[in-house]
């Protein structure tokens, strides 16, 4: 049995690497802090602290006057309505996009490789969906507010476009993922593509499609509240107005209502997903 005699002290080989990353991180941290103007202490300067504390103090109690609550209820409904209308239009966009871009409904691919034109069309449509998805809905809303003016229209269209791209992509993935045999046998026996969809793909995937759509609807409610900040109406716009007037109690009420709304939508979509399970 070997015994360890005194030899050169053993060095940890990972030491150099760790030291390097630590130094690299520190060196990178400095410009990051400068770029983000990360002067946290300014939050506590007297000129900032006083209005902050007053604003926070106004949170308790939140405003619960009847008239105001009615307004909040109306705006909450508008937020939900914008989200729902937006998703509905997104479906109008997403379903054709998905159907036109899935390979499983390709007739030419039944007998070997897909023909050139259908393949190009499908790729093009995928790129359209990527484009629709990549632009944040806030940007769409900003543009449309300047086209149709302030109000829910801009929000609905923004959500429709962005979520149309998102839903289209996921629908295409869901439709492609299942067993293609039923659909393809329908196509082989001369059924039209739409018939193949209704009799083959849709029943197979209805649960998953619905479940994902409901989940996205819940996300759309959050988006719709955020879009209100650029003038698309609903709870967000009201919150923006109250914040600009430093009205803490109104903001507090609306934040609470918003959190309740999100919680309710979350619970609903979770229940529905379980039911469809």
């Amino acid at each position: 049995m070997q015994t360890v005699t005194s030899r050169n002290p053993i060095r940890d080989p990972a030491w150099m690497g760790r030291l390097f990353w630590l130094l690299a991180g520190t060196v990178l941290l400095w410009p990051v802090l400068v770029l983000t103007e990360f002067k946290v202490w300014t939050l506590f300067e007297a000129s900032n602290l006083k209005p902050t504390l007053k604003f926070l103090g106004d949170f308790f109690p939140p405003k619960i006057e009847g008239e105001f609550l009615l307004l909040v209820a109306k705006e909450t409904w508008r937020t939900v309505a914008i989200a729902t209308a937006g998703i509905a239009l997104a479906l109008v966009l997403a379903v054709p996009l998905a159907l036109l871009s899935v390979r499983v409904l390709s007739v030419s691919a039944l007998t070997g490789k897909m023909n050139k034109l259908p393949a190009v069309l499908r790729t093009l449509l995928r790129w359209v969906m990527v484009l629709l998805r990549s632009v944040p809905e806030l940007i769409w809303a900003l543009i449309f507010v300047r086209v149709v003016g302030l109000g829910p229209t801009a929000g609905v269209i923004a959500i429709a476009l962005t979520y149309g791209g998102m839903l289209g992509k996921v629908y295409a993935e869901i439709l492609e993922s299942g067993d293609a045999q039923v659909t393809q046998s329908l196509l082989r026996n001369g059924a039209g593509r739409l018939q193949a969809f209704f009799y083959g793909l849709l029943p197979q995937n209805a649960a998953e499609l619905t479940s994902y759509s409901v989940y996205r609807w819940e996300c759309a409610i959050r988006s719709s509240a955020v879009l209100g900040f650029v003038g698309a109406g609903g709870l967000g716009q009201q919150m923006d107005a109250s914040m600009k007037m430093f009205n803490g109690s109104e903001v507090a009420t609306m934040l609470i209502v918003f959190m309740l709304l999100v919680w309710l939508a979350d619970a609903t979509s979770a229940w529905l997903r379980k039911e469809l399970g």
Partner: protein
Amino acid sequence: MSPRKMPPPLFDARCKACWFVFGLVCLTVASFWTLDLKWAQFFSLDAAGRMGKFVGEMLVPETSSKFLAKLGWAALETLAMSALGTGLAVIFGLALAVPASKTHHDDPAQWRGMTRAVLNMLRSIPELVWAALLLISAGLGPLAGTLALALHTSGVLGRLFAESIENAGAGPAFALRCRGISEAKIFWYATLPQILPQLASYTLYRWENNIRAAAVLGVVGAGGLGQMLAFHMGLFQMGETGSILLAMLVLVALVDALSYASRRWMSV
């Protein structure tokens, strides 16, 4: 021949979920009804003309060197906001995840309920709303944006980290606990080494999200590309707007690529 299964009926009166979907359809109809949607205005020639003009101008992005320099700085500012915001969120998220998780069978975990409530609150409020709130304290500029991202992402990461901690293998922690070692040391020596890959994966995933969020946060005044965008769009300077949008797309693609490369490097 094996009996072929008929597709399930689309609507079944006994099915709860079917009623719910029917309810959603009613909700949709009600939404369209009550909203004051200006379809006529949207589909009018006037609107189409304006859209056409915007898009036309956007397709000719502004490329003067002075503007590009400002754009570059704004892009760096946005990148820094997303990185610092995510980094801070990792620290706060982990700090909140520890009390929010039940680490072993006999763990009293008395702070779990309250900490989870705090994390839920941080999560539910979108980044933009946080930014708008923080503008009151921090004023215009990227500080509000960074803190907004940090707060929201702490809620998201805190919840994910807490779930990782609870799902970590119990063996190493049990062996150390038998020796009377304190929970703090057990966390660093037994729990964290096991969950580190998951934590890194979640962090990278949120960074990908946060770069998109950071780009638009500026619209309310929180600095970066968003603030530039709101400014130029407000003046209807569509050429500049086009450049800024391009810069946003490039930035998002860059962060996605960095994140992908990091994941590859980590899984080696």
